[in-house]
């Protein structure tokens, strides 16, 4: 059945409701709502959330935005917490202590801080143990909840409060970690990288596959942050589109080890198009700093070309 955005929205009520306190122009609630919509209406979900923007904005006692069951324990352990709930489900179902005709799906959400950094061990453990769960990283490229500190997902040269663009050091001096590839290295059945673009087709379909593929699956979703990135709130979708069109954030999936790039821009835009609208890269456009843009472009090209090769290699008979 072909994807139809209108049908999805009409037929599937939001499971992440209004009233949450995420910022206007934030990418995270947009992707969260869409991922939760990918659940079959008849299925129940247990959501585990790492501490972060999303958790502190969606479940402030005594209010919650989640219509499914939800658990937050701490920053670094959404993977482990979710795996425990999934183990309980397996055990209770096996013992006949839960209705046999009812399905519960397990989804963990974490920001890049709770996933790339402090929660990487917990995530890796949960994936390796083979729990039937999806881990979703909403990657906004820094610790936004505590006020825009650099993470290992922060792009090269970005200005953050712990990698400030100063007189001597021009922003974050390290390139970003490729978490999606680390997850591919776990040899789990489904890994995908996506973002909210145009009619959400890429995001929705990947979420659906991730949720309904048996075993551990992983989604890395770009989720721009207007405060941390420095763009006007209304430009969220434009920033997303530029991330895909410059191949800064390639959209692809790896199904049982086979790569498939799900979006190849007709015209790959130069990286300046993605960098220029964001204040965190402003210093890169000062005269004399052309080398920074050049280096950034080279890194993007290198990773994109590697991905093209991986797609080719893994699909050879």
């Amino acid at each position, binding site marked *: 059945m072909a994807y139809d955005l209108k049908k999805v929205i009409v037929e599937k009520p939001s499971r992440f409701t209004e009233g949450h306190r995420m910022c206007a122009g934030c990418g995270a609630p947009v992707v969260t709502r869409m991922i939760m919509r990918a659940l079959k209406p008849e299925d129940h979900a247990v959501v585990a959330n790492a501490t972060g923007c999303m958790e502190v904005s969606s479940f402030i*006692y005594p209010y919650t935005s989640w219509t499914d069951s939800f658990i937050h324990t701490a920053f670094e352990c959404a*993977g*482990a917490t979710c795996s*425990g*709930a999934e183990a*309980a*489900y397996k055990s209770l179902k096996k013992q006949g202590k839960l209705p046999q005709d*009812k399905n519960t799906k397990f989804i963990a959400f974490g920001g890049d801080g709770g996933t790339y950094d402090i929660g990487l*061990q917990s995530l890796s*453990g949960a994936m390796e143990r083979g729990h039937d769960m999806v881990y979703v990283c909403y990657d906004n490229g820094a610790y936004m909840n505590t006020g825009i500190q650099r993470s290992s997902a922060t792009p090269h040269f970005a200005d953050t409060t712990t990698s400030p663009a100063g007189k001597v050091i021009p922003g974050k001096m390290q390139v970003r970690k490729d978490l999606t590839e680390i997850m591919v290295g776990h040899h789990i059945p489904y890994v995908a990288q996506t973002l909210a673009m145009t009619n959400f087709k890429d995001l929705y379909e990947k979420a659906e596959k991730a949720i309904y593929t048996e075993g551990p699956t992983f989604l890395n979703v770009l989720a721009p942050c207007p405060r941390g990135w420095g763009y006007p709130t209304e430009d969220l979708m434009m920033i997303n589109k530029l991330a895909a069109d410059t191949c800064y954030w390639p959209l692809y999936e790896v199904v049982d080890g086979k790569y498939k790039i799900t979006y190849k821009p007709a015209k790959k835009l130069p990286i300046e198009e993605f960098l220029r609208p964001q204040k965190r890269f402003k210093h890169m456009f000062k005269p004399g700093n052309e080398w920074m843009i050049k280096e950034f472009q080279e890194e993007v090209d290198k990773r994109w070309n590697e991905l093209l090769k991986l797609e080719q290699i893994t699909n050879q008979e």
Partner: protein
Amino acid sequence: MSIRERLSGNEATAIAMKQINPDVVAAFPITPSTEIPQYFSTFVANGEVDTEFVAVESEHSAMSATIGAEAAGARAMTATSANGLSLMWEMIYIASSLRLPIVMALVNRAVSGPLNIHNDHSDAMGVRDAGWIMLFSENNQEAYDNMLMAHKIAENKNVLLPLMVCQDGFITSHSIENIELESDEEVKKFIGTYKPEHYLLNDKEPIAVGPLDLQAFLFEHKAQQAEAMKNAKQVIKEVSEEFEKWTGRKYEFFEKYMLDDAEIAIVCMNSTAGTTKAVVNKLRENGIKAGLLKIRMYRPFPVDEVAEALSHLKAVAILDKADSLNGAGGALFEDVTSSMYVNKKQVPMVNYVYGIGGRDTTEAQIESVYEDLQKIASSGDIGNPYRYLGLRREEN
């Protein structure tokens, strides 16, 4: 009818867990508690339990997964020691704040550093204010019995708090002793099935667990936890009485050994009580009125009962197997002396920090404490209340 066996403390604990047949066990190996998940995973591998065993990649994840499982509606258990508990520390507080009746076996060992794998109580003392019920066990029988009583206490509607059963690393965990086991059916009957009121896997009533809890509510929520801990006292009493009716083995908040007519006494926990009993017997033969108070229920602390039980003594020594490094005595010493003070009981009391890092505690050492107590009792002079027992150092 009880079954006579010979088991180590770890084996006894693993067998109790097998009989409890929890829905989920998540654990990570650490000496000296490693054998517990080892034995238990054998039960899982042989289909002797219904449990999902989650072989996590760290103790932080062990407690996180246990929390996830218990919140989901399962009976979930784990076991650890020392640094494993330290790594769990963040989650220990979260487990109790979520009011999850998780049961954990804590095989006591010295917390680093420097690294040491042997017994003291520094791990347990580090979480004494974390909102967990803490039961201590003198020997393998008590470790087994406390474990059988654990769920009935923790899961009580007026309690709903996590509970840890402590035993001494190696001294108890690895020593084989005679033990009386109960039958699987009897254990099952005693514990009953777990029926949580609210749980994540109930699709008819989705719940949200673990909020951001700000100035408007956190204070009241913490007070509710404190109230539950107070309620636990009565529940522990009732469950212990029920247990006694079933097995004939009597448990109270603490054990009084030759205490009622004693003039001098030691207060201690876990295996040292065994050594102390042997010394008390010897002293009694020589007409010395020595006694012992062995704490079983450390959290909640039986403030009034302890004060009452010690009020008639002429001198008391409190033995702490963990140094609080604060210039004001060990944790048990503070608890006991505070209990006395609020109950307006004035008895000379001294503190001994002993057995750190698995240093052997001998009968001769315990005897020397009673000798000190006799001097204090006759002179009324406490001298330095903060003492060491068995510490090797330059004469001063």
